[in-house]
């Protein structure tokens, strides 16, 4: 029986091991403790929030939304900046996208961070914690801005919502007024400005990023207050769509003051710029988009092959530089966009001059007409015959074989959208061409290597191609989808100057004279024009809001900004009302041995009409089904 105590002991021992707490977290789940207690953890948390930040970069199109690699329906082909074979009209954002819910997830992440980092403050210095809190506020503000510019007033969530602690009814938060949301964005960005450091890691916000974003957001609010006609008021008197006109001055002043905070902190990129040297100014403008040390870059999103990539080059290079995926020339700038610039022959109404006395002007090379073009135009658009990656980009509509005695008459009546008559013109349906024998015995392909092809449309459909952001030295073997990794510059100093100039001109027109606003706008616009190599303004007398807007279109073209600018100015429905954009078609006259240009309406007859409703995008139906207190925007 002596064994008995041992058995008891063994039995009891078994009990003690069972006392180990079972209530432990699975080791595969990362807890707050893991993330918030070290700087590396916080950096990882921030990295995710920045990657979710709703900015319209290389991976955005209205058709497919944010953070989507496939951008064959480019934003610029909805605004009239460009034509594309895959985007043939104006559009509001695709209503099936999850932008709304994605934004609220990011807002929750930011709120969660703000509410919880305090518990771990002991591990960090005060400055670290404050900087991070500023960053979280910046991210929240930028996300609310993405919502308000789409939908107007949205539900204001400034703390982490808890379910099931809070009831479903309590969580069906109604929309707040548009004005309140903009004010909230302003307050958050002020907080961010006060708490963020002077400098930060590339791709993260510093205090001037917050100020720059504030100038943008407040400018949007000011223009909505001034130009919006749409009103939607809920049962409690919140104006969900629209801002009282009386607030315009307040917002424009806030935009102006925020922009002025960046004075002296950033500057326009002029590293290779030289006064009077058009080629240097052109190269400088091209380089600006690829120089990591550019003093103009305020807020960027970096990419890096192979882990974080986009396909901007593959989709947009001219046809003759096409990569192995078979994509090319999705963005083809319209003649309307090109005509905004200076430095080529123009008619009295500002359109390009291609005829004299009713007969086409003849040029030896297609680039001759653009010999003195504004350097910024050459740096933004590939003009027919201009050089890219060491080759001349050949764009030719066809060969004119008719008689040229006494000059060539226009091929089509003005305003025609018809196809060209084929009796005196040889053209090509696609890239496998049959060379045409010229009178001097040599042969020439009817169309250029980059188009125009009448059949398949995989070419420059406007007579131009895009240069901005196309990497100048990328080998064709790397022109592939998901192989590009140039940095997206979301906010650059030129935009801040344009924000400042626009706010200043608006304040001047609203009778504000506490500062010399018009003179200041004059200075900023001329700084931008000088850098771009454009003709300078000679005085403030002609400095109207249209001048500022035109400058903005030119400077920020193809940077996905005009999509929103046309909306906040409330001009989209005027600009796009059964509108057909214009193209420039170079022809080679066989008998002259020279080129002529035909400026015409888009031969494909793509009509652009902007529906007035789209100034406030449709709130996704499934969000309304989840939260019936959400009131739909007017007209949907």
């Amino acid at each position: 029986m002596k064994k008995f105590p041992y058995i008891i002991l063994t039995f009891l021992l078994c009990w003690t091991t069972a006392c180990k707490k079972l209530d432990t977290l699975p080791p595969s789940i990362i807890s707050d403790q893991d993330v918030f207690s070290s700087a590396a953890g916080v950096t990882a948390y921030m990295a995710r929030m920045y990657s979710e930040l709703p900015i319209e970069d290389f991976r955005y199109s209205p058709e497919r939304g944010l953070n989507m690699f496939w951008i064959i329906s480019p934003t610029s082909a909805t605004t009239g900046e460009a034509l594309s074979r895959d985007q043939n009209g104006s559009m509001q954002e695709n209503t099936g996208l999850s932008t709304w819910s994605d934004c609220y997830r990011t807002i929750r992440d930011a709120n969660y961070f703000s509410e919880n980092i305090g518990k771990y403050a002991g591990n960090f210095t005060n400055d670290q914690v404050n900087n991070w809190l500023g960053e979280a506020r910046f991210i929240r503000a930028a996300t609310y801005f993405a919502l308000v510019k789409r939908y107007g007033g949205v539900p204001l969530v400034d703390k982490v919502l808890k379910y099931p602690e809070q009831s479903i009814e309590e969580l069906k938060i109604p929309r707040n007024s548009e004005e309140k949301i903009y004010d909230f964005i302003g307050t958050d960005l002020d907080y961010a400005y006060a708490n963020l450091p002077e400098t930060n890691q590339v791709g993260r916000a510093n205090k001037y990023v917050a100020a720059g974003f504030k100038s943008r957001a407040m400018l949007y609010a000011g223009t909505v207050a001034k130009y919006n006609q749409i009103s939607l008021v809920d049962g409690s008197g919140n104006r969900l769509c629209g801002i009282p006109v009386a607030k315009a001055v307040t917002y424009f002043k806030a935009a102006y003051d925020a922009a002025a905070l960046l004075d002296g902190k950033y500057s326009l990129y002029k590293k290779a710029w030289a006064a009077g040297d058009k080629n240097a100014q052109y190269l400088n403008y091209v380089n600006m988009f690829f120089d990591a040390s550019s003093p103009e870059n305020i807020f960027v999103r970096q990419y890096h092959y192979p882990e974080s990539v986009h396909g901007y080059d593959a989709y947009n290079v001219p046809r003759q530089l096409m990569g192995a995926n078979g994509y090319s020339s999705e963005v083809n700038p319209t003649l309307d966009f090109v005509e905004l610039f200076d430095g080529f022959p123009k008619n009295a109404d500002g359109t390009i001059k291609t005829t004299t006395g009713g007969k086409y002007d003849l040029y030896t090379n297609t680039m001759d007409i653009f010999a003195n073009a504004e350097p910024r135009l050459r740096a933004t658009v590939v003009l027919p015959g201009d050089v890219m990656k060491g080759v001349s980009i050949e764009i030719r509509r066809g060969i004119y074989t008719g008689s040229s005695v006494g000059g060539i008459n226009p091929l089509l009546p003005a305003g025609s959208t018809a196809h060209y008559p084929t009796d005196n013109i040889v053209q090509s349906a696609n890239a496998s061409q049959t060379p045409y024998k010229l009178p001097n015995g040599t042969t020439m392909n009817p169309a250029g290597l980059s188009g125009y092809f009448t059949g398949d449309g995989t070419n420059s459909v406007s007579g131009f191609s895009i240069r901005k952001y196309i990497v100048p030295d990328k080998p064709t073997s790397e022109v592939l989808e998901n192989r590009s990794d140039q940095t997206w510059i979301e906010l650059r100093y030129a935009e801040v100057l344009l924000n400042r100039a626009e706010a200043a001109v608006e304040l001047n027109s609203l009778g504000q004279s506490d500062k010399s606003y018009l003179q200041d706008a004059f200075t900023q616009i001329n700084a931008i024009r000088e850098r771009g190599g454009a003709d300078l303004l000679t005085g403030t007398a002609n400095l109207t809001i249209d001048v500022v807007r035109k400058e903005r279109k030119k400077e920020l073209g193809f940077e996905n900004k005009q999509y929103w600018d046309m909306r906040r100015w409330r001009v989209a429905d005027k600009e796009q009302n059964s509108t057909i954009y214009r193209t420039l078609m170079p022809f080679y006259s066989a008998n002259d041995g020279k080129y002529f240009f035909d400026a015409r309406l888009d031969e494909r007859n793509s009509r652009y009409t902007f529906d007035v409703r789209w100034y406030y995008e449709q709130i996704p139906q499934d969000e309304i089904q989840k939260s019936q207190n959400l009131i739909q925007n007017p007209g949907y």
Partner: protein
Amino acid sequence: MKKLFYSIALSVLVAAGSSCKKVDNYAAPNVTLKGTVTDAGTGKSLQTEQGSGTRIKLLEISWSSNPTPFYISSFQDGTYQNTKLFAGKNVISAEGAFVPLVQVDDAGKTIVDKSQTVDVKDVTTVNFSVEPFLRIEWVGDPVLNADGTITTSFKVTRGTADPNFQQNVSDVAVFVNSNNYVGNNNYDNRYTPKLSGNDANNSVGKTLSLTTLGGALPGKRSYFIRVGARVSYGLNYYNYTDVKEVKVP
């Protein structure tokens, strides 16, 4: 053992078969709602465009006091019809180029509510009588000129005496298209003459004549013509005349 297997298999089959009984006991929607939106001043139906013109708003209050609205787009001539509705109690109003039937002030208080509460069943007709922002009349028929253009004469007047809805006239246009669906949603801008800004605003009350753009119109076809005008209010709906056809030989 085999017997047991078969009996289990049989009972599974019986269970599966019996679950096929239909439980969807709600009849398919078969109720018709139709009607016309008419101009209170003239008694004629109010012309509009399809898609972004007049639409009828239904709030079904049989189940919920805060329902999601359901909309029926009206035809171009101002009539509407939907033959696949469920029966139910609805608050019905209309939206379009006329003084809103439901108006909310800046404090969110409903100050005007002319919506109708109707038991929609079988075939229900609900008409609305509204005050258009603008009333556009033909002055004679469009004329085919000797030079191959078409000149249209018309007169734009205010359709409402309420000063809150007498905003400036922002656009006047004689829309031209190759089929009878013509309006701001569907027109040919090569031929369509337009007035905007002060020219549009000063046109109120006068007889105007506008001639098609772009010289002689291509022949051997019909053109469909309709005059539209709008004020700067809300979604900038257009008011329209009816459609007239001009044959060009």
